[in-house]
């Protein structure tokens, strides 16, 4: 299982600050976003704009994610 932290509206829609996603080696960020939408349909409308961070850096769709990675998903930022 891959632990994924959620923030802001993504967390509110999923109803949890951290979710577990069944995972296997070789899967990418694109798979992560797809599975997140399947497991938590409430988050689905946000998925196209969701940002994914792997080990504290932004990761593109083709980035491979390992179960040991620190992973977070969140909508566009609005600090400042």
């Amino acid at each position: 299982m891959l632990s994924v932290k959620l923030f802001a509206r993504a967390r509110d829609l999923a109803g949890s600050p951290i979710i577990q996603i069944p995972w296997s080696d070789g899967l990418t960020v694109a798979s992560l976003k797809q599975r997140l939408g399947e497991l938590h349909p409430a988050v689905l409308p946000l998925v196209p704009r969701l940002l994914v961070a792997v080990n504290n850096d932004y990761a593109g769709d083709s980035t491979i994610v390992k179960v040991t990675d620190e992973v977070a998903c969140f909508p566009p930022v609005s600090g400042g």
Partner: protein
Amino acid sequence: MISLTHDSIDYHGLTESVRSSQSGAVVLFLGTVRELTRGRRTVALDYEGYPQMAEVKLRELEAAARSRWPVEHVGIVHRLGHLELGDISVAVAVSSPHRQQAFEAGKFLIDELKVSVPIWKKENWDDGTTEWVHPGVEMSRPD
């Protein structure tokens, strides 16, 4: 100095920390909670962060500023939690030999912070509704 805090931001201490006799210029930027946003009235903001990544990204921004301008000291503090009208949400202070550099570096840091550092704000409108601010995401449905 890079930090996230749940307390009031001591921008005076932050500014003192970047001053030096090697730098002729200091620029400080303060972001504060504004009452009116596109005609709607805010009563408070809640800021949430992903602290470990936010600190990594802030340090990257400091390094990027240093690679472009002869910045001597950089201080950035972002506040998290519940902020009332007029409260300071973020303070960015930079010192450099000349003012042009200090202005450019300060503007760069706050502009980039707003697009790359994982912190989010939730509006508390005066009609009692709340709404996450996610630029580019449809805002029609209040949370």
